């Protein structure tokens, strides 16, 4: 396999973009990433688009050709990659493979979700499509409710209190204030979280990622490309690992409902590929679609023992200067979660950290960063590790 590098990223702010359609957002993000990399759109040899629900929410599939057309890139291979909320991470994984294999020298891994064209009951229908339609959704289960089942099981198994789990969104909101792309740039208190309305007991509104619109894009390339284009980035960031794993589609088929084994498998593969251990990771982005998931991820990725994830949050270890600085752009909870784009936002944020462009949330000297993107309740997990090599 050839070495693969990330040379530029582009994001739109995550908002309720009433004035922009899916194609506008996606084209904007890809164009920004090309500008950031200092390349022409015409240098792009292939486009991967992470997206979950364009078919249901916009009645639009075939968004690869849609965005290629929008950008005037007629002839360039382009396709949608779908793995529910892990679509973005999986699009990056596929883009990585396409350069690593020697097939392409410069490609784009992008992601988009345009959620506010629909009303909440329809978005709820779209999101539960991540699970089994015939044997789970049919009984009225919502995506939030499945995470709530995990939440209660975890609390009862490990005797952990909601007050401790609910600290995760408080942490994320504090850091989102420093992120100009974040959907909610304001702090919330633990009391705000615990007093917010119940969505599916015990999950409250401020423990759940919001609905929003956004797109993000990353330019990946080979060493050849950097040389031939005469690019000389001050800091060079390599994709040190890209790994994915699956688990049962539905949580009731798992032996331990409170462990996401796909997260364990994908991260161990990634650590091995990058030749790093959890304590080598300088910055981390985890898929906190719900407060409980943020906690589970810290455990399953190897940063805390089972049942002890909340201790890291309580003791400030997720902060800049802590043991494992995590979700410093606000995470899914406060940066926002435009589903198919989320995995790309996460990797772009890690890139900004490694290139010293993270503003007030910068971790000094960050060299190795990891992004974990999850589809369904851990049914797909993609882990990508970036490393500054110059």
């Amino acid at each position, binding site marked *: 396999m050839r070495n693969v590098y990330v040379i530029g990223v582009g994001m739109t702010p995550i908002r309720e973009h009433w004035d922009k359609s899916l194609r506008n957002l996606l084209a904007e993000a890809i164009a920004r990433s090309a500008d950031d990399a200092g390349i022409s759109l015409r240098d792009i040899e292939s486009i991967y688009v992470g997206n979950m629900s364009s078919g249901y929410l916009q009645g639009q599939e075939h968004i690869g050709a849609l965005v290629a057309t929008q950008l005037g890139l007629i002839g360039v291979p382009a396709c949608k990659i779908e793995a529910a909320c892990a679509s973005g991470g999986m699009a990056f994984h596929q883009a990585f493979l396409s350069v690593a294999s020697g097939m392409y020298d410069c490609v784009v891994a992008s992601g988009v979700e345009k959620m506010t064209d629909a009303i909440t009951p329809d978005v709820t*229908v779209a999101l539960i499509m991540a699970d089994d339609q015939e044997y789970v959704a*049919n*009984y009225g*289960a919502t995506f939030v*409710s499945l995470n709530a089942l*995990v939440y209660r099981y975890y609390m009862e198994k490990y005797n952990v209190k909601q007050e401790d789990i609910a600290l995760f969104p408080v942490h994320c909101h504090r850091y989102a204030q420093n992120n100009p792309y974040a959907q909610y740039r304001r702090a919330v208190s633990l009391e705000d979280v615990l007093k917010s309305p119940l969505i*599916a*007991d015990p999950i409250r509104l401020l423990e759940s990622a919001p609905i929003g619109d956004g797109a993000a894009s990353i330019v990946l390339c080979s060493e050849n490309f950097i040389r031939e284009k005469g690019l000389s980035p001050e800091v060079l960031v390599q994709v040190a690992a890209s790994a994915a794993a699956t688990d049962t589609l539905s949580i009731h088929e798992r032996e331990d*409902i409170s462990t996401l084994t796909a997260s364990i498998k994908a991260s161990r593969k990634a650590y091995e590929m990058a030749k790093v251990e959890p304590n080598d990771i300088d910055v981390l982005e985890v898929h906190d679609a719900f407060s409980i998931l943020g906690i589970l991820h810290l455990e399953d990725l190897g940063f805390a023992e089972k049942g002890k994830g909340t201790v890291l949050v309580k003791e400030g270890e997720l902060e800049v200067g802590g043991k494992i600085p995590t979700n410093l752009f606000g995470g899914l909870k406060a940066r926002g979660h435009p589903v198919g784009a989320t995995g790309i936002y996460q990797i772009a944020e890690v890139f900004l950290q490694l290139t010293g462009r993270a503003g007030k949330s910068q971790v000094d000297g960050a060299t190795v960063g990891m992004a974990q993107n999850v589809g369904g309740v851990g049914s797909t997990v993609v882990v990508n590790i970036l490393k500054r090599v110059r």
Partner: protein
Amino acid sequence: MIVESVPRVWREKKYKYRLIGSRCKSCGSTFFPPKAACKKCGSRDLEEIELPKRGKIITYTVVRSPPRGFEYLVPYVIAIVELEDGTRVLTQITDVNPEEVKTGMQVEAVFRKLKEQSRSGIIEYGIKFRPIR
């Protein structure tokens, strides 16, 4: 279900009306819904079995923000039930005040309406669970 479909409901009837799962003939593992291969031993030799109709609640939640089509039921309980043979199913708990539901509660299968496929579509039936009183 988004696309209204009569054949889909028809072919799933057996599994949903009678709780038919599958058992691996090689290692004995059981599954719901039925599988094409066993996740434990990899065998493709599986047989359909009728699962027990009683079990206990392993974990539960109360849905307050429903998907389209379930608005009339709110608040309703979704739970994972472990059947007497150890097979787990995801289901709705019915005939109960949500406040009364507890982990460990003994429940039994009952035949109920699951949903309607729009105003003019067909009505889907299947199994829910209720507390054993």
